[in-house]
Structures are given as structure tokens and as C-alpha cells.
């Protein structure tokens, strides 16, 4: 009896997840189709770039600064024990550029921008604003979704680059404060040991994370059912789906060493 119930539960969950994955795939296809040829509403694009990017800079900078500093604090005992001050910058920079920076900034971006995007689109859906656009012969995918997806992808890359820079500065400041390592030594450690590929690896990841956050947040926004309660549920689902997608993508991109 319990076994039957478990199978039913697992089956129901599997069908629900498949439905969401299918829906996200269809939306992605519609976005690609709307981008060929690329006719994006310029005003919506600029508005979203500003809203999603500029306003995220302070929180991303703060997160990145402490992430960089944290890498140094974590490695401090080993650096001291091995007297490997020349490797402190490499250790912090490698972790920040390739992994910690893109992941942390993406999760921050998902919580701030992705959740907001789902709530906004969800509210527009339940108040019939998307139908209102369609009634005026305006394709909501082209008018609303495409500018948001492009903005999120572009801005997450920009924020990751800014965050990387701030994290390295944070690492250097904390290294001076905690380990008394001079800025020049840290700078040398960064430039001699880190390669452009370390930086680009993080940038590629952020591009993929931006795509995942954008598409999932838009999907859960436009498929909201059930008024304000439904919007809350959709935001929750979007944040969870984005976090899971980010982790999965991160695993595969790290494994492939793109």
C-alpha cells in the first residue's frame, strides 16, 4: 500500500516536473523564434537593462567584496603554515573567478532580479495585461519577454565582471589586514598565476546562468494561475528552479572546463 502510494507520488512529481521542463523549453523556442530576425523593443530593453543591471551593482559589489575576502580568510591558516604568501592571490582569484563569483552573483541576481521579474509578469498575467497586449495585436513574447531575457543575460555578465574585480580588490584588502601581505605581492600572484581562461570560464558560466534565470523567471511569471497566492507560489518556484538550474549548469560547465 505504502509502495503504491510512493510510486504514485513519484510519478505525479515526475509528470509535474516534465510539464514544467517542457513548458520552459517551449518558451525558450518562442524566444529564439522572436529573436529571428532580432526586432527588440528598444525602450523596453533600455528600461530593463537599467532596472536589472544598474540597481544591482551595490548589492553585487558588497557580496563580491566579502566573497573575495572570505577566500583569503579561509586559506589564511594554510598560507601561514606553508609560508606561501605568493600563492594567496592565486588561490583566492582562482576560486573567485571560476566558481564563487559567478555562482554567488547569479544566486543574488536570481533572488533580486529573477524573483522580481516573475512577480511582475505574474501580476500582469493575473490582471489580464498580457491578454491586453495580445488583444492589441502585440506579441507579449517579443514585447515583454525578449527584452527581459536579453537584459538579464547581458547584465549578469556585466555584474559578474564587476563582481570579479571587486572580489579581487576585497581579497587584496583582507590579505593585507589578516596576513599582512602587501598589495604588490597579491597583484603579482593574480597576474602571474591566473590566466584569461580562468576569467572567461566564469564569464561563460554567467552567460549560461543569466539565460537559465531569465527563462525560468519569465516562464513561471507568464504561467501564473490563481491570483495573488498564485504569484507568490510562482516566485517561490522560479527561485528554486533557477537555483537548481544554476547548480546543474555549473556542474556541467566545470566538468567540461569550457
Amino acid at each position, binding site marked *: 500500500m505504502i509502495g503504491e502510494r510512493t510510486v504514485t507520488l513519484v510519478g505525479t512529481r515526475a509528470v509535474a516536473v516534465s510539464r514544467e521542463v517542457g513548458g520552459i523549453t517551449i518558451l525558450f523556442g518562442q524566444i529564439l523564434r522572436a529573436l529571428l530576425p532580432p526586432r527588440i523593443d528598444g525602450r523596453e530593453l533600455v528600461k530593463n537593462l537599467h532596472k536589472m543591471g544598474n540597481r544591482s551593482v551595490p548589492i553585487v559589489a558588497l557580496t563580491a567584496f566579502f566573497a573575495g575576502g572570505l577566500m583569503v580568510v579561509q586559506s589564511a591558516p594554510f598560507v601561514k603554515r606553508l609560508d606561501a604568501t605568493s600563492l594567496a592571490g592565486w588561490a583566492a582569484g582562482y576560486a573567485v573567478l571560476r566558481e564563487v563569483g559567478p555562482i554567488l552573483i547569479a544566486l543574488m541576481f536570481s533572488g533580486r532580479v529573477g524573483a522580481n521579474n516573475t512577480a511582475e509578469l505574474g501580476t500582469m498575467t493575473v490582471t489580464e*495585461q498580457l491578454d491586453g497586449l495580445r488583444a492589441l495585436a502585440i506579441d507579449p513574447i517579443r514585447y515583454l519577454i525578449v527584452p527581459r531575457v536579453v537584459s538579464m543575460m547581458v547584465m549578469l555578465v556585466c555584474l559578474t565582471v564587476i563582481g570579479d574585480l571587486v572580489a579581487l580588490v576585497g581579497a587584496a584588502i583582507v590579505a593585507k589586514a589578516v596576513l599582512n601581505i602587501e598589495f604588490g605581492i597579491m597583484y603579482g600572484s593574480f597576474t602571474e598565476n591566473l590566466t584569461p581562461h580562468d576569467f572567461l570560464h566564469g564569464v561563460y558560466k554567467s552567460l549560461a546562468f543569466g539565460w537559465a534565470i531569465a527563462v525560468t523567471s519569465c516562464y513561471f511569471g507568464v504561467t501564473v494561475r490563481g491570483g495573488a497566492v498564485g504569484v507568490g507560489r510562482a516566485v517561490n518556484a522560479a527561485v528554486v528552479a533557477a537555483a537548481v538550474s544554476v547548480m546543474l549548469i555549473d556542474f556541467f560547465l566545470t566538468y567540461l572546463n569550457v
Partner: protein
Amino acid sequence: MIQLHDVGVRFGARQVLDAVTLSVPRGGRLGVIGPAAAGKSVLVKVIAGLVAPTTGRLVIDGIDVTGFSEERLAPVRARIGMLFQNYALYDFLSVEGNVGFPLVRRGEPADRVATRVRDRLRAVGLAGSEAKLPSQLSGGMKKRVGIARATIAAPELVLYDEPTAGLDPVTTSKMYDLLRADHERSGATAIAVSSDVAALITFVDTVVFVYQGRAHYQGPAATVADAPDPVVRQFVRGALDGPLVG
């Protein structure tokens, strides 16, 4: 002319509309009445091309538009104006932006749009509200902005979903006076869904009573209170006793 032939709509297991057949001549005014959740709003959305019929055909001016893609529906929708039950005003635009939106999207010059918006807002009694945001408006004001937006591009067909819900009786009368004057001037076809039957029949010439997803009764608006069907009579008169279910 709008024609629905045996139109059915199913959402999952629920049959919302079932074999609805009706026609509205060019310039005609049809009122859609019926109990809550009878399928009235869905019927209007089918006509606007926002909900695809599961069965049956939708014919607009002799063209069968059933199954048209969004792209192919675009020119049909460009001839339709619609007022939504929940207003559907764009939160990110001011009153002026909302009302002028259909003209802006058609690429009309800004000065012409501004003039038309001012005229329309004056007509619905909202002159001077151009800069306000939808969140700053009362329900009645939102409704009037929605009507201004639905009619600003002089559409050939205007669909009104609950045009006077939430309005006081005096504003309701004013609103129907405005709609009547608008349609007499433009000659546009109108389809209006309303729960306020008494007010609605002052505007429309024919009514269809939607009941349990079916077009249960169609007849002249003037005599609907004396319709031969007892379900319709009970609904229109608001009687507690009778055969009406739900």
C-alpha cells in the same frame, strides 16, 4: 459580421462553452448575460481570438479565423477594441500612456496621439488625469480608462467585459450614454458582457443568455424580461424561486 458556429471550449476536464452558435451583424449590439461562471467572459475572449475554441468555428467578416496563428490573427485584432473585466491597464504606463498605447504601437505621430488621448479622456470624464498611474485610480476610473483605450483607435468591433461593474448607478447611466453615442457615431459593432441587465438592455439591441456553457436563449433586448423561457425570466427579474441552477 461575427459568427460562431457550434463553438466549444474545454479547460482540462471542464467544458466552459458548449456548441455556442450566434451571429452579430455589422453595427449590431449584442448583450451577453448569464449567471456567474457561465462562460460569458470566455465567449468574449473567443471572439477576440484570445482563447482558441476546442471545437466549432469563428468567422469574422466571412473569414474563418479558427486556428489562426498569433501572426495571422494580428490584422484581425487590429480591428478590435476590448475592455477587460479586470481593466488590464499596464502598470508601467500612465493614464495617457495606456489610452494612447494602441495608437503609439501603430506608429501614429506623438502630437496626434496626445490630442486623441485628451479628447477620449474628456469624453469619459477623466480630463486632467493624464499623468496619473493606474495604481492611483479608483476601480471606476480604471474602467473608464479601459473604455477610452478600447475605443481610441476607432475599432470596427468593441468587446466590453463588464463595462459598468463597480460603478454607481449614475456613472453607469453616463457610461452607457457615452457608449451609445460612440457607437451611433462610429457604427462599430459592440458585444457587451454585463451582470447589470437593466442597464445593459438600454445599450444593446439583442441579448444572448449564456447558461451552463450554452447559448440558452437569444432574443431582442427590449423584451428579455418577458422571454418565454422561465430560466431567462427568473434570471432577468432576479427571482429567488424558479428553475435556474447555480
